[in-house]
């Protein structure tokens, strides 16, 4: 769920028509930038009811999550969407063989700001739930309780690469045989005022909306509110349950730059894409579509294009390239999972969405469509890079399921 859709079907439609959730939002008092792709009309009670969960689960979710911070409400909705879509109520897997990984850290800053006035009034008025809601791991505790998950679980922190790295860890848990099924949730990053302003003061955040990633006039990212969940499953388990996969994750690369600063590194980015391809056992020319990290950062977009060019050197032809962030904003910790869903629906439905806000494209051999373009592609690549020197890349294979 995000600023342009409440569920994956709506998301596929929104991507196809190029519906952007980015706007200049009122209410960011004292903030220099108001560009944001916030959720609109999200009501947890309604979203929950729309999923028609079993009555016990419905009651438990209202009780555990009804008054929880926004990020946890969003994680709960997408986890239930994914659980239902994977048929885990009809054909369950025993709890000890299910894991849950949440991509996200620093998820509680906005909640802390919201309860601070009560604390300042009188320290004893700080809600006792702060001990629970003040921790990122509340997502793991809550989702595992609601869905009876007894295998392993943890949060994954890699800044804007958290989503991809969480998927990588899910693949590893399944590959090791620790679990057969693993939920991977990209947690909605609800920025506090300080965090928002911090990004702006760094020069990383766009002052206003309207210019998209890979445009020569780009001037930073627009934050987006979004959450997504994928159910990863071993082939054997899916076969036992008689379920078809919507896609296969066939390779990944992950690497640190060894850099505490926020600048990206072309060598690290190119290396991680190359490792992902090697891991997947395919060459670059088999990739028909790349979902870029593409934040709209001046240096970031330039570095990624240069890294992509390095990986494709010596190959004729270049794949389609887009950045979902032009439509959804930068969902930060959740980005990698939101964009994984974008890759899956585009592979399935045979289109690459347009690059929003692209008027004067940067020079590149990669094809940057501005509107949805038909494609018949088997293999796709999805990049995620994060402050702190994180580089990640995933290879997806279309299934006909």
């Amino acid at each position, binding site marked *: 769920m995000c600023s342009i859709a409440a569920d994956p079907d709506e998301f596929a439609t929104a991507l196809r028509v190029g519906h952007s959730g980015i706007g200049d939002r009122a209410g960011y008092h004292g903030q220099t930038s108001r560009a944001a792709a916030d959720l609109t009309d999200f009501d947890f009670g309604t979203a929950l009811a729309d999923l028609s969960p079993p009555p016990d689960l419905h*009651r438990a979710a*209202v*009780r555990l999550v*009804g*008054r929880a911070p926004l990020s946890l409400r969003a994680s709960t909705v997408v986890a239930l969407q994914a659980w239902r879509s994977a048929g885990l109520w009809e054909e369950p897997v025993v709890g000890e063989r299910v894991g849950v990984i949440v991509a996200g850290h620093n998820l509680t800053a906005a909640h802390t700001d919201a309860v601070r006035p*009560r604390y300042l*009034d*009188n320290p*004893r*008025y*700080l*809600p*006792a*739930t702060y*001990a*629970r809601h003040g921790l990122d791991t509340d997502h793991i505790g809550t989702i595992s309780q609601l869905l009876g998950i007894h295998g392993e679980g943890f949060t994954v922190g890699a800044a804007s690469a958290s989503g991809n790295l969480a998927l990588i860890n899910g693949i590893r848990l399944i590959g090791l045989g620790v679990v057969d099924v693993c939920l991977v949730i990209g947690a909605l990053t609800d920025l506090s005022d300080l965090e928002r302003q911090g990004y702006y003061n760094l020069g990383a955040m766009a002052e206003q909306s309207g210019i998209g990633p890979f445009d020569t006039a780009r001037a930073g990212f627009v934050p987006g509110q979004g959450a997504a969940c994928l159910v990863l499953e071993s082939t054997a388990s899916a076969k036992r349950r008689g379920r078809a996969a919507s896609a296969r994750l066939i390779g990944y690369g992950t690497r640190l730059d060894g850099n505490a600063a926020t600048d990206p590194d072309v060598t690290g980015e190119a290396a991680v894409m190359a490792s992902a391809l090697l891991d997947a056992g395919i060459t670059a020319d088999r990739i028909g579509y790349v979902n870029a990290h593409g934040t709209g950062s001046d240096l970031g977009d330039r570095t990624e294009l240069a890294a992509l060019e390095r990986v494709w050197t010596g190959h004729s032809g270049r794949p389609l390239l887009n950045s979902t962030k032009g439509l959804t904003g930068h969902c930060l910790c959740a980005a990698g999972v939101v964009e994984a869903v974008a890759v899956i629906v585009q592979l399935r439905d045979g289109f690459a969405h347009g690059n929003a806000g692209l008027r004067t494209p940067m020079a590149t051999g990669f094809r940057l469509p501005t509107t949805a373009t038909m494609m018949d592609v088997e293999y796709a690549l999805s990049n995620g890079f994060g402050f702190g020197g994180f580089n990640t890349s995933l290879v997806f294979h279309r299934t006909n399921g």
Partner: protein
Amino acid sequence: MSTLSEPSTELILAAVREAVVTVVPEVAPELVAPGRTLTELGCNSIDRAEIVTIAMERLRITVPIGDFAEVGDIASLVDVLHRHHP
């Protein structure tokens, strides 16, 4: 201590009832009565702590956490809250 400024037990029970209904929305308000315990109304330890916090905030009083150790039911909770006010 003037009787005019001292919150009555009814007021305190009302604040506790409001707090319970906030934390456990499915509980019928009339069940929040002196004879019952929070546990039987479906509250776990975090719920009970949160109910106390919300009630104190509503009543504008402060009670040290240790004072709640002896509390067994709603009647004794109201009693502890009643004993403490600025």
